[in-house]
C-alpha cells in the first residue's frame, strides 16, 4: 500500500508516544450506533441498532450485519462506508485461503488477516485508519467464537462485548447477565435486553438487526418476523 505522493504515514507518534489518529478513530467508533455480541455455549449472537436517518429510507436496502463466510458473520460500530471496505477485503481473504488450502478458513485466521489490514492503514502512506470496530462471530472446529477488532488492528476474544455509543452501560449490563453455560436462545434474549437498555425510542423488529450462528455452522441474519418473536418472548 502507499499512495504515490503520500509516501509518508499520516498516523504518526505524538510527543507522549500516542498514535492520535487511532485515538480519534476510536472516538468515531464511540459515536456510532451501539452493537454487541454474546458467545453462548452452543453458538454466538451479534446484534446492532439500526437507526436510519429518515423514515423515507428503505430499510430493506440496508443490512448492517454481514456474513464473511457461510460460518462467520460480522457487525460494526462506526463508519458504514469503512465497514463495507473491510467486508469486501475479508471475504476475498477467506476465498484466497480456501483456494490455497481447500479448507474453510478458521475464525482466528480470518480475524488475524482482517486485523492486519486495519493495522496496515495505520502505518501506510497517505491513508487514515478505519473508523470502525468489528465484532466477528463464527463457529468452526474450535467451537463458537467472538472477536472484537479495533481500528488499531488489535483484536481480542470475548465472551460478550459491546461497542458504540452505549458501550459502558451495555458492558455493565452484560457483565451482570452473562453466564458461562448460557444457551443461545438465552443469549439472544440478553442481547435484545441489552440493546433495549440504551435505546432511545421504541425498539422494534425493524430498527434492530440480529445475526446468529449455531452448531449447524450457518451464519444467519434473522428476519424481522423472527426478531418479532424474540421481542415478544422478552416482553
Amino acid at each position, binding site marked *: 500500500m502507499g499512495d504515490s505522493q503520500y509516501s509518508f504515514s499520516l498516523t504518526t507518534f505524538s510527543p507522549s508516544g500516542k498514535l492520535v489518529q487511532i485515538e480519534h478513530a476510536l*472516538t*468515531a467508533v464511540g459515536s456510532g450506533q451501539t452493537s454487541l455480541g454474546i458467545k453462548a455455549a452452543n453458538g454466538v449472537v451479534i446484534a446492532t441498532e439500526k437507526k436510519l436517518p429518515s423514515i423515507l429510507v*428503505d430499510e430493506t*436496502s440496508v443490512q448492517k450485519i454481514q456474513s464473511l463466510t457461510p460460518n462467520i458473520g460480522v457487525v460494526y460500530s462506526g463508519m458504514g*462506508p*469503512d465497514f463495507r471496505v473491510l467486508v469486501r477485503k475479508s471475504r476475498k481473504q477467506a476465498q484466497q485461503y480456501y483456494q490455497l488450502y481447500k479448507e474453510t478458513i478458521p475464525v482466528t485466521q480470518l480475524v488475524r488477516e482482517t486485523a492486519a489490514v486495519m493495522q496496515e492503514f495505520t502505518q501506510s502512506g497517505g491513508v487514515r485508519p*478505519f473508523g470502525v470496530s468489528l465484532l466477528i462471530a463464527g463457529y468452526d472446529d474450535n467451537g463458537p467464537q467472538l472477536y472484537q477488532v479495533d481500528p488499531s488492528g488489535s483484536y481480542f476474544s470475548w465472551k460478550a462485548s459491546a461497542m458504540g455509543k452505549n458501550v459502558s452501560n451495555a458492558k455493565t449490563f452484560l457483565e451482570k447477565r452473562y453466564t458461562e453455560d448460557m444457551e443461545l436462545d438465552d443469549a439472544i434474549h440478553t442481547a435484545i435486553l441489552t440493546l433495549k437498555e440504551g435505546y432511545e425510542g421504541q425498539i422494534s423488529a425493524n430498527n434492530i438487526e440480529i445475526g446468529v450462528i449455531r452448531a449447524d455452522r450457518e451464519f444467519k441474519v434473522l428476519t424481522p418476523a423472527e426478531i418479532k418473536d424474540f421481542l415478544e418472548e422478552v416482553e
Partner: protein
Amino acid sequence: MSRGSGAGYDRHITIFSPEGRLYQVEYAFKAVKSSGVTSIGVRGKDSVCVVTQKKVPDKLLDDTSITHLFPITKYTGLLATGLTADARSLVSQARNEAAEFRKKWGYEMPVDVLAKWIADKAQIYTQHAYMRPLGVVAMVLGYDEEKNAQLFKCDPAGHFFGHKATSAGLKEQEAINFLEKKMKDSPQFTYDETVQIAISALQSVLQEDFKATEIEVGVVRKEDRVFRALKTEEIDQHLTAISERD
C-alpha cells in the same frame, strides 16, 4: 489525552479530527449545498421520478447544454447535485463501469450494484489523502427485474441507501420534512402521482411556481424501463395538473 489536532491538517485532508470526524467530508457536503440547487427523488409503486432546478446563470448561455440529469445506461439514470465538474467526472466513470459490467457478466448492471460502486469509490476518497472527496450527491434510479422501482442516494461520505423519497442540495432538510409527511403511511403512488409529488415538493420547499424550462425531470417506469428526461411539454402537463389540483 490527545492535545489539539496534531499538525492541524485534519481540515485539509481526510484524516480524523480529535472528535473522530472527517472535516473534509463535512466540507464536501457543504460544497453540495453551495451549488444553490435542490433536488428531489420519489419512488412510486412502479416508477421513479427525480426533479432538480435548472438554473441558467446567464441568458446568453445555451441552456440545452446545462443539465444535471445523466443517463448511465439506457435503463439507469443519475441525478447529480453539487459541483458540476465533479458530477461529470463521476458520471463518466459510472458509465464506463456499467458498460464493463454488461460486457463482463452479460446482463445490465442493477441499480443497487451501481449505487454501491459509486459509494465505495466515494469511501476511497475519504480514506486516501491523495484524492479529495467529490462535492456531489448522486441519486441513482432505475427499474430492477426483481425489486421493481429503485431509487438510491450516494453521498460524499460513501453512504448509500435505498429511498422511498429523498432530497439533496440547498433545501434538503425542508424537502425531506415535506416528503416524510407525504410518505408517512407508505403510499403506493402511480406514475402521475409520483411525478407530481416530486415537482410539488420542490415548488413548496422553494416557495415558487416553476415554468417547465426551469426544472429538469427524469423518470423510469415499469411500462417503459428506459431512463428518460421529460420533454418541456410533458413537464408542462404535470405542472398544469398540479395547479388545477390545488
